């Protein structure tokens, strides 16, 4: 399989093939020796890359992989090369045109709503204050937009990932 992996501003081409039970891996076209074991299933792994040792836990969410290693957490966008090419050909631009929403990152209580429907918001502007773990947490706008619909009221208990605000 061929992958395109993006970490921050860097892009890597990775080819993985299985031959006679062994993994053959190329990184940006160069073969690397790989020894991968599961320390703790499913995804706490130990990896030897050309005998250099790395320990990491990998978690997948809908859009990316989270790699935790050496007390750090990294985000990686991974795409199958074929899918990537198809997208390019079809002119698909990722994440544009999708309805934009503000979701609650944790369960909690809505303490205040700082915007009104129809209001324009700027990145970094406070939208909703949710109380959890005895602390008030201000959820801020991550992008420029216009508030279309506010789905919650002050005093309402919300679940994790519950949609609070929908943007135009």
């Amino acid at each position: 399989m061929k992958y395109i992996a993006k970490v921050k501003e860097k892009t890597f081409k990775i080819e993985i093939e299985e031959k006679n039970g062994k993994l053959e891996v190329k990184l940006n076209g160069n073969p690397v020796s790989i020894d991968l074991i599961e320390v703790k299933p499913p995804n706490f792994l130990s990896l030897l890359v050309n005998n250099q040792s790395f320990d990491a836990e990998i978690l997948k969410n809908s859009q990316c992989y989270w790699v935790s290693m050496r007390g750090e957490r990294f985000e990686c966008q991974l795409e199958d090369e074929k899918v990537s090419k198809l997208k390019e050909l079809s002119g698909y631009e990722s994440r544009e045109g999708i309805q934009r929403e503000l979701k609650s990152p944790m369960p909690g209580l809505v303490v205040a709503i700082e915007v009104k429907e129809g209001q324009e918001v700027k990145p970094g502007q406070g939208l909703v204050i949710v109380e959890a773990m005895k602390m008030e947490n201000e959820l801020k706008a991550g992008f420029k937009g216009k508030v279309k619909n506010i789905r919650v009221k002050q005093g309402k208990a919300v679940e994790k990932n519950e949609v609070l605000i929908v943007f135009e």
Partner: protein
Amino acid sequence: MFRKILIANRAEIAVRIIRACREMGIKAVAVFSEIDRKALHVRLADEAYFIGPSPSSESYLVMEKLIQVARKSKAEAIHPGYGFLAENPKFAKMVEDEGLVFLGPPSFSIELLGDKMRARKTISQSGVPIVPGAEKAIESEEEAIKTAGKIGFPVLLKAAGGGGGKGMRIVRDKSQMKEALRGASFEAKSAFADERIYMEKYLERPRHVEIQILADQHGNVIHLGERECSIQRRHQKVIEESPSTVVDEEMRKKMGQAAVKAAKVSGYVSAGTMEFLVDENRNFYFLESNTRLQVEHPVTELVTGVDIVKEQFRIGAGEKLSYKQQDIRWKGAALECRIYAEDPTNNFLPSVGKIITYEEPSGPGVRIDSGLYEGCEVSLYYDPLISKLLTWGNTRDEAVQRMKRALSEYHISGIITNIPFHQRVMENQRFLKGDISTHFIDEELEKKNLIFDTDHDELYEIVALFSALTDFKDKKKTKFLKGKKEEKSLWKIEGRKAGLRRFGY
């Protein structure tokens, strides 16, 4: 000594206290709310009693229930830990009236020191320097402006009955006074049911340095030196250390004596902390007392070797302190990183969930106080402080290097923690030089430091490899890894050869 102690708290601090009980042959009684049935403190205790629904207002904060458990379990003393009821004079009084020992100061002492204005007055009368300010509650805007003129702008308005940043306002000139007074007293009233506001000189770049004291019931008071607690965010401490980079032997002696004086004049008994602000010229001023065992007490334990919790037990049982001042020696340097369940890359929002993987660092000079284990739940009902990672070294530099090493070994998944944030602080040049104040985190965040890591691009290709290999592995999983049904899998044969489940060479 006591035979049985009730611990009116939960999580890491309850675990810490249970450990002291066990080492002294004392039976430990735990309490738990609905969600805490499988919490570590319940599993480690000798006895455990259910005290109600998960919200602390219906469990850990209900005084009557705790007293009932004490009666039922025949505990002789109650340790309140920190937070919850630890600094509630009413609870201390209830425990005293029940004929039990409250493992903390007497209720009158909590009451005196809990009232910030009374504490300032009492302690300044004993000759301990306090932050310049007004001695009584502010009654009008005119009076406030007059007083501010005397002590000099900027000034700080503070709630007499409170703490934690609520009811606090910085006033830089007289035009801001009216609005600040209104806001502060409104907040103070709603948070502490006490609208009294007093005024202090606002120090621009202070350090927060506190002195640990121990006082027995026979009038002996000693100090265990200082803890530097300037690394804070939203008035919450994040990293503490001892010794402080600004405190030398002479200053330690002076601050220690001041703290001992403050304890004596307020009739203090048990372990406690006197907090001071230190200005840029190394002048120190009494700020307030914490009449409880502090979160960061292990920092002092590492540099002095004194077990503060056991000392609290001895004091509570009426014994004399096991140390005299001249017995206290400080060795090396200790650091504490508070591990919070929060996401530093997303505005420090709390993160809750079930712990999937949990691996603690160990090795030389490492101590962890936590209530975590694989499979346990971090819920939104309680404090986001989930663990305390401490390191000790012969020098500050060694302690810092150990902390970096320990942080890199600390693996927690299922929730997001601030471990990477601590890594950034340990690499921060200002922190390494000891150039810090209580504004350190805000100032560094402003400069886009501490959160965004730029130094690790050499790891990016490894991150990419891990992600691609995980995807590949997951897609082929049924084929290779569920070996039971596929006895002839080459992977399995290879794995057996190597004695491990291997994935290529």
